Every structure is written in C-alpha cells, then in structure tokens.
C-alpha cells in the first residue's frame, strides 16, 4: 500500500533552507555519517568540508532524497525529509554530483532539453538559454558533450542544475579537476547565485574556495567536528596572535613583552621572531610597539598572525587521527 504524501506547507523564507537534526546513515556496520546536526539559512552559502570518506557525498545524497537516512530528522527547502515527500523535495532542489554525468552522445542542448522535461520547466527553451548564458556556453549548445573538455562538461552540469531555478542547490565538488581559470568562473557563478538568493550547499576539498565563498563552513569527519564562519573558526581554534620580527634577538624578551596590555602569552619562533597570543590586536599592537622602542629594539615588522581555514581543517582532522585511529 502506498502512503499518501503529506500536504506540503509553503516554504517560509525566514525558516531554514536546510535543517538537520541528529541525522545518521549506516551501510550495514559501516557508518557513513553519524549524529550530524546543523541549519542552513535561506540564501546562505554553506561549505561542507572533510577528508575522503568523511560522509560528505552521502550527506548530500541523503538530503537529496536519493538514499534514506538511518535515523534523525531533516527538512529540505522547508519540507520534512520523508520517503513520501521525496518528489516534492526534488522539485525544489538541484544537485550537481561530483561527476557531471552528462549523456556524452547527446549535444549540450539535448542534455538540457531532457532535464527541462524531467523538471517540467515552463518555457524550456528560454530556461535553457538562460542557464547556458549563466555558464557562458550559449555558443556551444550544439556541441556533442563527449567532445567537450572536463571544465566545459562541469559547466554544462552546472547549467543543468540551474534549469529548475532551485531553492537549494547542492554542489558536490564543483571545481574538482578544473584549472584555476575555470574554477574562478564557477566561483563567480556561485557569487551570482548567492546574490540571487539561492541557498548553496557546497562540498569541497578546496579550502581556499570555501574560505572565499562560504558564509559558514562545517567540517565533517563522519561526525561534525565544527561549524561556523571561517574567521570565527580560526579565532576559536588558534586565538589572535601578533608576529614581531626584530633585526637582532631581544636580550631579555620576557622583560619587554610581559605586562604589555592585552598580551596573554608569548613564545620565540626563531631568532628575532616572537609570536604573541593577544586578547585584542588593536590594543596590543601599539603597546608592543612602544615597549619595543623603549627597549631600543630595531623592529622589522609587527603583523597579525593569519591562520587559514586550511590550518583549522588540518588541526581538526589531525586531532581525529590522534584520537580515533581508523
């Protein structure tokens, strides 16, 4: 007996585009991801990072209704994630899988025509043209997909994902294997979509990409390791620091640096280089400058230590490696 789909409420634009609560997926004894909870706001670009096998793609497939979760709850585009709502959810989202999955014997336009039919897109020719314009492929519409480069195929797959004008767009490694110029074009397109209010769920290995594009990122390694805006994660894990370089090493750095306002601790990195953990960069930097000048030090530079998202990622993944050898 088939279960009738529940009436789907209209999507409230202030409610989360994605809401995931204690979601888990197991394949037999193997855990793909476990106890994952997060929310993604409407119009947000949300980065989903993690090493190979962390469960990123399985999470996307689960939220995309391709596979069923083992436990937990989720709403996607405002609709509860249940088997009965699968079709309605898929109407409101689009997924660009890691592999473009194009029909290589068909032309670009023929590929898009097929998907315009599957989404029952109104005015399909106009939508196809708009999608091709968005990825700069209008002049390649008649090309057979098998003859396109990897970068161009990726753009066709992106055009295909845009056909249905989705509320939530899942991009699974959209720049994998692309050269820097092609990746830059994809980044620009994601920026454009963000301005258009599309919620984007981006899984990527490229940390600089996540840092550049994402409002918030989550780092997954089977379980969710952390979540937040990239800057906040950096500050949370590494604190704020100043790097001081002097021409000659200080004779007694402790005398100079201890007691300076906002300086919490310090260490010497190499000859003439000191790293200071501070509570407030703006308060600490001028005070340290004055202290160094008063001590007669020849200062080469004082700069804020910038930890990248990559540092955050590696630190968390390293911690996992130490605590949970898989």
């Amino acid at each position, binding site marked *: 007996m*088939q279960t009738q789909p529940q009436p789907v409420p209209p999507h409230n634009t202030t409610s989360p585009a994605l809401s995931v609560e204690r979601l888990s997926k197991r*394949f*037999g004894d193997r855990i793909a991801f476990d106890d994952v909870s997060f929310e993604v706001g409407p119009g947000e670009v949300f980065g989903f990072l993690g090493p190979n096998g962390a469960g990123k793609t*399985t999470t996307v*497939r689960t939220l*995309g209704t*391709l*596979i*069923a979760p083992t436990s937990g709850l989720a709403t996607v585009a405002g609709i509860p994630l249940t088997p009965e709502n699968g*079709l*309605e959810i*898929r*109407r409101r*989202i*689009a*997924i660009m*899988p890691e*592999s*473009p*999955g*194009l*029909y*290589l*014997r*068909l032309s670009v336009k*023929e590929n898009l*025509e*097929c*998907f*315009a*039919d*599957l*989404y*029952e897109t109104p005015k399909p020719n106009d939508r196809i043209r708009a999608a091709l314009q968005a990825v700069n492929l209008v002049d390649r519409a008649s090309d057979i997909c098998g003859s396109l480069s990897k970068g161009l195929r990726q753009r066709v*797959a992106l055009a*295909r994902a845009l056909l*249905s004008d989705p509320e939530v767009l899942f991009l699974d490694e959209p720049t994998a294997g692309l050269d820097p110029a092609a990746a830059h074009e994809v980044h620009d397109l994601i920026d454009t979509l963000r301005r258009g209010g599309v919620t984007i769920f981006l899984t990527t290995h490229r940390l600089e990409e996540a840092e550049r594009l994402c409002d918030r990122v989550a780092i997954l390694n089977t379980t969710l390791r952390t979540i937040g805006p990239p800057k906040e994660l950096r500050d949370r894990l590494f604190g704020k620091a100043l790097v001081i370089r002097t021409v000659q090493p200080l004779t007694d750095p402790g005398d100079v640096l201890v007691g300076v306002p906002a300086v919490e601790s310090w260490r010497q990195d190499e000859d003439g280089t000191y790293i200071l953990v501070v509570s407030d960069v703006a308060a600490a930097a001028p005070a340290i400058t004055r202290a160094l000048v008063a001590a007669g030090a020849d200062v080469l530079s004082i700069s804020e230590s910038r930890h990248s998202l990559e540092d955050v990622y590696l630190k968390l993944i390293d911690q996992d490696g130490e605590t949970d050898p898989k």
Partner: protein
Amino acid sequence: MNLSARRIRGIFRKELRDYRRNVPVIVSMAYLPLIFLIQPIVVIFKVDSSTAQIISHAPVLLYMLAIPALTPAMVAAYAVIGERQQGTLEPVLTTPIRREELLLGKAMAALVPSVAVSYTVFAVFVLVVDIFAAHGIAAALIQGPQLLAQLVFTPLLAAASIWIGIAISTRSNDVRSAQAFSLLATIPLAVPTALMAFKVIPATLGIALGFAAVLVLADGLGWRFVSAMFDRERLITGTR
C-alpha cells in the same frame, strides 16, 4: 499516482537520441533480426513449387516472431546498468521523476525501434518471397491469419521481452552480463510461437487469443514488478 507525460516523453526522446548514436545498441538490434531473416529465406528458396501445398499448412511465418521476443531484451538490458556505468543515472534520479515514469519512458524507447525493426524484417521477408520464391510458394506462405498474428504479437512479445531486459538491467553490475542473461531469459517467450511454427501445438484462434491475453497481463504486471525492483539507493551506492 499521477504520471507525468512530459517526464516520460523526456526520457523517451533522450533514449531515442542516444540509441541513434550508440553503435553497440544498433549492432545488438540488427544482428539477431538478420539471422532470423537470412535463415528462412535460404530455406524458402530451396523449396520448389511442388511443396507449396505442404507449406500452406505450416505456419512458417510464426518463426519470425522470435525477433520481437529476443531482440528488444538486448537493448533493454542496457537501459539501467548502462546509465549507471556511465554515471548518468544519479543526475536523473535527483530530478522529480518517479521510477515508474523513468522505466516507462525507457521501455517505450526500446519498444518503438524493436517493433519497427521486427515489422521491417518481416516485410522484407514477405517481399523477397513474393518476388523471388518459386511459383506458388508466396501464395502458400503469406496468409492473412499469419500476417495478423505477426501484427498483434510483435508489440506484445517485444514489451514482455523489454520488461525482462530492464528487470535484469536493474539488478546487474555490467552491461555485457545483463545482455547475456536477458537473451537467455527471453528464450521462453519464443517457445510457444516456435512450437506452433513447428506444429507441435496447433495454431488455433483460441490458443492465439489465450497467448495474447497472457502477454497483455504480463506486460502490465512487468511494469509494476520492475518498478518495485528499482531501488534508488542500491543503484546509487551499490549497497543494500
């Protein structure tokens, strides 16, 4: 369940476009009918007009129904596993298409060329016999009931063959084994017509109607059965 004609048409059109440029599928669709065309032509040309009376009592043309019984499964066997191997199945399954729509679109796309090939081969055979066979052979061979049987049973057998092919395709892990198993699995479909052709069972109207009814039922149930077998999760992840 409301089926979308547009989504079914989308799959149907895509499949036909893909077949047109897919050499292995075209070869699969062509070589079996050729075997079934050449063999009876050779036999008929060995027969002289003195044996026309004997032929007129043997439903030789039913032998040609082996084409729609066997050929479409080879094409249909490619339908799901072919897409899965190419990585094109996942993007399709992320769209709002129902599995029933996907399978119906694929089945119709396999049915149309299969029926066209079967009718064409049959027409060529009849034409060759009519023009070149010994005097009296054509009249003895080409009979109204047999032509009607060919017309009616071709799509029914082809549809049954297609559901067998797609069912095997949804459970296979590679195209070649799917095609080989499909060919084997459809052989029973050709048995009743072969038995009639070789006069093991009589080719009566009652038997023909009974066989047609069974095929209509099998075609309808085949769609439902294969839809139930179609497991998105297993096809995407290879597990479960």
